[in-house]
């Protein structure tokens, strides 16, 4: 059996107008929930459980702020790619 446990982390900057608001937080949780990797969000030393919308909201990221996403699991690469696309596309805002 060959399960490669991947541990990835990446810094993202929010470009969308409203920052990390409820809709965005909901989208992030939904993305994470489709993968088996454990996901966490970090900002200014605060860690949020990637499966908890309330945790993510309490990070309180306004527009332009940076935060770290960590993914750990055998599909960490794929989930990170999807986060990348989502954040780059400004969550479909505009």
């Amino acid at each position, binding site marked *: 059996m060959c399960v490669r446990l991947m541990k990835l982390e990446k810094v993202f900057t929010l470009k969308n107008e409203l920052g990390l608001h409820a809709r965005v937080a909901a989208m992030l949780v939904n993305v994470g929930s489709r993968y088996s990797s454990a996901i966490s969000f970090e900002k200014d030393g605060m860690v949020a459980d990637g499966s908890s919308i*309330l945790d993510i909201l309490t990070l309180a990221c306004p527009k332009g702020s940076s935060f770290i996403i960590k993914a750990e699991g055998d599909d960490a690469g794929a989930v990170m790619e999807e986060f990348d696309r989502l954040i780059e596309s400004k969550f479909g805002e505009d």
Partner: protein
Amino acid sequence: MDKEKIKTTVILRGIGVSPGIVSGRAYVLDRCDVQALHIKMESDEALSKETERFQQALADSEMQLRGIKDRLEDGEGIGPLFINVQIMILRDRKFVESTVNYIRENRINAEWALNLTISKYRDIFSRIDDSYIKGRIKDIEDVAQLVFRYLSDERCERVADIPEKVILVARDLSPADTVQIKSDKILGFATDVGSKTSHTAIVARAIEIPATVGLETITREVMTDDIVIVDGTSGVVIVNPDPEILKRYEEKKRHYLVLEENLLREAHLPAVTKDNHRIGIGANIEFSDEIASAVLHGANGIGLFRTEFIYINKERLPTEEEHFMHYTQVVRGDGIKWATIRTFDLGGDKFISDPRLSDEMNPAMGLRAVRYCLREVELFKVQIRAILRASVYGNTGILIPMISGVQEIKTVKKIISEVQDNLRAEGIPFNEKTKLGIMIEVPSAVVIAEYLAREVDFFSIGTNDLIQYTLAIDRVNERVDYLYQPCHPAVLRLIQHVVNAGHQAGIKVAICGEMAGDPLYTLVLEGLGLDSLSMTPLAIPRVKKIMRESTLKESKELVAKVMTFTEPQEIEQHLRTYMVQRFPELCPLTNE
């Protein structure tokens, strides 16, 4: 999300057991305030039962939210974000774990634990600078309210402490409950079960407050502090009415309060003046249940059947059969000679029920009524087809609201004729002589009334909107309320113009706004030559009696006189003085 805005209007029909109309805040008796319930648990068994209760309440809450979500998505696919967020909160691991931990570690009941979780989040969110995210605590609180409700459903039975001036909502009221009730505290009753002879009914009649029983689901549909209208005469209860409905019921209520018995006894007499001029009297209704009351109060027909209730807050659009059922009940109603059915008079926002959509619109001037119908032609056709099919069962008129130009009515006629062709092709009967009329409520329609008159069989002047559009005032904006003047010389001249244009073209002109039911204006409207007046049923007896005691000659003279004034206040003052002197017993209410 603003909690007020996601409240939807719900209409329930029961048995009216104590007459009268009342509106006010609901107080639901069988759901006590569990939030304040603090219980320490001794046994581990009790603790695991609390955890189970909490999990069950979460599951029930989620099911309810999913139900709402499905309904909203049937609309136009506008993602109901607040529902999605609330569902995610319900499933949020942190949220659930926190509460379960409080139950286990503090050995307390689920309600108390949930309260601790909310306080914790309140604390966290209050320290966030971003005002948008700070405000999301509201979502958590809303979700918690829902969970509290499910937690309470099985725990609580009764609460004795009823606040002042509320409408009491309960499954049923027992003698034990009612002995605690002081009549000055309670505005009305609405219960799930009961009949005319049940205890609730007897108590309500004894203390003379409106009551409707047998509503089946009222305790589930209403939450304490929701606004509720109880119509104990027709047995209808409306939960969270929108401002327009509330206003209409305030009007009904006013009329009810002043209606004396002797007026009611004479209500069936025709509206014929002493010099033998006959005026048709119609009732404005929205439920077929109101027909009996309309006839009792002296209506010859239904001058305005509002159809919006058929649409709003349904899980899906009403089918043709549902429309048909409503319309046949109206047109074949006992004791009425004719019924005018007004087509859909709202915007699409009303049944998509997305609060954000309605927020952004100026609903009075937006895409609504005939404008909406001409865009959603299929929806319109379903309604027209049903009305035409119902026309076989009684003298039916179709009334199109908010017409502003000739092209609109031409398009409507084309659609109606297509529907008729289809019905003929399918061999479905309808009355070929079904009359088509339009509401005259947009000032442009008044100005070109002579052209519109060529297209239709009758006019019905909707004074509420006509006044609003003519004087450029928002009826629900209290700051410009003072400008709402039916006596404005411009308004009276517009009505005069419509009547003249209609009569020159040989068609009948009716009026169906609130003005028609206000005795202050009865003689003016008579003198302006309106062929019929349609109003809320309770207003009819008084208006008819004024007509019977008047002459057409005097009312024409009165009109000639008021047309010499330039100010609304002068006209109103003159009318008041005239009416109070001329009909001292019938017009005291005009001095509110």
